[in-house]
């Protein structure tokens, strides 16, 4: 239970107290936006996603029983929304996303050739190139500091799956970076 997520607040929010809900959202918002950013990877769309998440959270607040943190609950919703939306509309585009870094020639524009690429960028790209489930698990673990159990909650998957997703995510990163470094 983190800042601004006291049981009383949650209780009030569940009872329809809008102000309490907004306080909860206020403390969870940066993490939510960050998470949405890692899903949607474009600011406008990420904010859309966050917005939609809040809309649904407001509608579903009664079903939130405080078993997880409010933030991770929002993340769960956000990911559902995202997966649904992606399934409906964005399949092609997302596929495009995921193959982005595999495209030949990326990174060999003239400036790139001349100046090389910053390694952190490469890492960022390697992360971006991970399959969504691995990327999400990795970022939730390393960046958002969620426990495996919380990640399993957000991703609606077994604990062992979280473990393997994170393992394979890091493995891929390592391979990607080493391939770059060769």
């Amino acid at each position, binding site marked *: 239970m983190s*800042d601004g997520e006291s049981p009383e607040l949650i209780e009030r929010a569940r009872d*329809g107290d*809008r102000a309490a809900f907004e306080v909860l*959202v206020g403390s969870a*918002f940066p993490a939510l936006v*960050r998470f949405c*950013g*890692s899903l949607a990877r*474009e*600011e*406008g*769309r*990420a*904010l*859309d996603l*966050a*917005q939609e998440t*809040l809309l*649904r959270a*407001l*509608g*579903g607040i*009664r079903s*939130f029983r405080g078993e997880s943190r409010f933030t991770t609950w929002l993340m769960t*919703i956000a990911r559902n*929304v995202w997966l*649904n*939306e992606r399934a409906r*509309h964005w399949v092609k*585009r997302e596929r*495009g996303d995921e193959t*982005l870094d595999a495209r030949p*020639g*990326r990174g*060999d*524009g*003239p*400036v*790139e*050739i*001349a*100046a*090389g*690429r*910053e*390694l*952190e960028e490469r*890492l*960022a790209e390697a992360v971006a190139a991970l399959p969504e489930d691995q990327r999400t698990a990795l970022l939730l673990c390393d*960046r958002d500091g969620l426990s*495996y159990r919380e990640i399993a909650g957000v991703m609606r998957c077994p604990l062992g799956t979280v*473990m*393997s997703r*994170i*393992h394979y995510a*890091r493995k891929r990163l*390592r391979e990607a970076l*080493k391939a*770059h*470094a060769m």
Partner: protein
Amino acid sequence: MRCEDVEVLLDAYADGELEGLAATGIAPAGAAAVEAHLDGCPACRAALLEVRAFKASVRRLPALAPREGDLERALAALPAVATRVEAPPPATRARPPRRFLFALEVAASLLLAFGIVLSSLYLGPGGVSLAYVPGLFARYDHERVPFEPALEPVAPEPALLNVAGAGETGALRLTREERRRLAEQGVLGRTPPRPLASDTATRLHGTTNGPRTFADIYAETQAAGLPTLLTADVAVLAFAGLVAAVEDRLAAERIAPDSMRLLATLEATLAANLSASTDPDVHAATYLAIDYVAIGRTLLGDRRPEALSTRARAELERVLASEGVKRSPLTGEREDYTAYGLTHPTPRGMRRRALAWLARERFPLDRPEGARAALVLTHALFSARDDGPALERYERIRAGIAFFEGAPDGYDPERLVPALRRTVGESLRLADLAGGPRARALLESLSGLPPGEIPGPNGTRPFFSLLGPRYGAEAAAIARLTWPHVGTRERPRTRSTGLDVLVAAGLPGARSALDATPAGAYPDYGRALEPVAADLAPRAALASRDRDEDLFWLVHAARLGLEPERSSGYPFFATTEAARARRLGLALASLDIVALGQGRARIQDRPASPAASDRPGHGATGDPPGGHLAGAAGPAAPPAPEGFVEPAPELFARLASLSRALARALAEGVEFPSRERLSAELRDLAADLDRLAAAARASLEGRPVPAEAAALVRDPAGFAARRAAFPPSASWTYAIVLRPEGLATFHHRIVRGPVEVLAVVPRPGAARGELVLARGAGLFAEEVSSERRLSPEDVEALPRLPPPVWARPFLVEVSR
């Protein structure tokens, strides 16, 4: 267990989850089994270190953060009453969210999307460049202002980026009259933009002018005709703003008057302490504090130490109190403060650890904050007289000061060797004193640190912490000197404190290597050290066995230093010059493009004929190749306007080279050798840019180009030919889009709205990446990966043109 078995468990182990997973039967083995294996397996220990390094690196990756107002907007957009009660929503059939629909709609409206786009120059119908006019663009907000374009960072260097906002702060050097006129025309905002919050410092500002729609802007600029700003050359002005900002920063880096005053007061107080007491411990502690003040003064350099040091102190208090998971006052991130305190039972140990943490995690010296960290440390230590054996610390600080004094100019290799010599000489001197009580105490303190001092994830190594990445090269050099000492049987537990290394530098292998090095010959120095470093690999294994992360990295650094081309198996050490240069190149390229666009704007500025400006309906598809752009199929090129001003290529070259130097200066905290020379060049260039701007104004007003600006102006006689290469139209909206694929990560802008690509100009000598001339409605920020790029077929189908002659210098600069 075999390595393969351990490998799949290492991640969970590093994440601290393995025990839990093993307890529930999900993982086949627990932490104890993994640790048993690690004890005997250097490879897996190295793998573990790597996993940890990855964790840390991933954590530092940039992430999307809400901007000011996002939360409020999001909340305001929620319905007053919750309309649905079901929790995490059903998969489909939900009401299509407005915002999603909008995004889709916009996406769909993109007839051609440009994957990776550098430029974002929008030229209005009158040829007005909106893209860099300060204050014109509010942030894209599709809730209220559907077609408002956005400005996103062009490159990640705030000081380079904020040029667009510089007009609001006067840095663009507009006269008051100019400002007033521009404000009346709606080109400049009347109110300055809000200051940047520090966490958004990488975002471009100068963008808030209230909720104005694109249509508003469009109408206003049309109604305003052609603002003078056009010919005043936004690029030139922007660069002048950049110059001013950098000069400012150069000045500020060295002198921070408030902090200096603070330190002076401290020093006076300390001096009074000295005379007020005869207690040797008090004296020792006071000297210590004075030394810290000296470090603070050496490193000082920020204009706003107050705010930051307040936050730093708040954070320090949290660290000291081991408060648990809280939000960091400095970074706003959640931080587990218990990690810094619990392993140290004594307040003293905690404090030391906390300070080390603060120095290392929050204030690496390669950032300006490093200087402020010194201040904070000064404060903290000044009030901590009971903290540790004073003599030890005194010596440590002395050695630290020797180091800093020895290498004040950062990266200049010419000066590095003498500095190292001095530093090493200092440690030799200390070693020579080994018979004396001081050195003995020193050595004892090095070899007999209590177990509580064994470094954890955040280390307790003040000097290497202070050295940080900035002095990485030096650290690596010192480390090379150190290896004969590290891991000897006598002292298997190496502490790698700064003093440790410095003293160790006096050991025979290192000393002979140093002696064999000609003065001032840094590469030779490296070669001479090769025998010393030959056994780095076993030492890396040693570091790995001892789970000594810092040592591991030092070995890595040393390896990289010796074999940069081969040994970058682990990449995080190499933050290269090239990368910095690249940032520069990008910032520069954006300026170039503005300049390029300005040239074009000038051309459009003077329509050839009414017929030429009445052809808005033509798009890419039906046009003959090169039809519009080459001017061949269009009406005859109009006579060249007299006095047209186009910056000379040499000026771009100067901008480029100076920009690189500036970026280097900014990236390295402005401590580089030729500060004065740079300042002088900046002044010269600024003056020339002023002259150029004056020439541009003169030309607009029909006056001849002033003689002193003649050399800055590109071949006016050849202008007609150059001009003939461009479309004589005054009524189209163009975006010049440079799309070298590799620029993706920094350049997020593409054209939004109905856009037609009119032509693709192949980049000279580049297989990929073209100048695309397009027409469209405006600009917006978009992640590169999210929109369709032109396929090779698309590109093939577009009309192709010879590269414009006058664009070549620009392109050459970009590709350099």
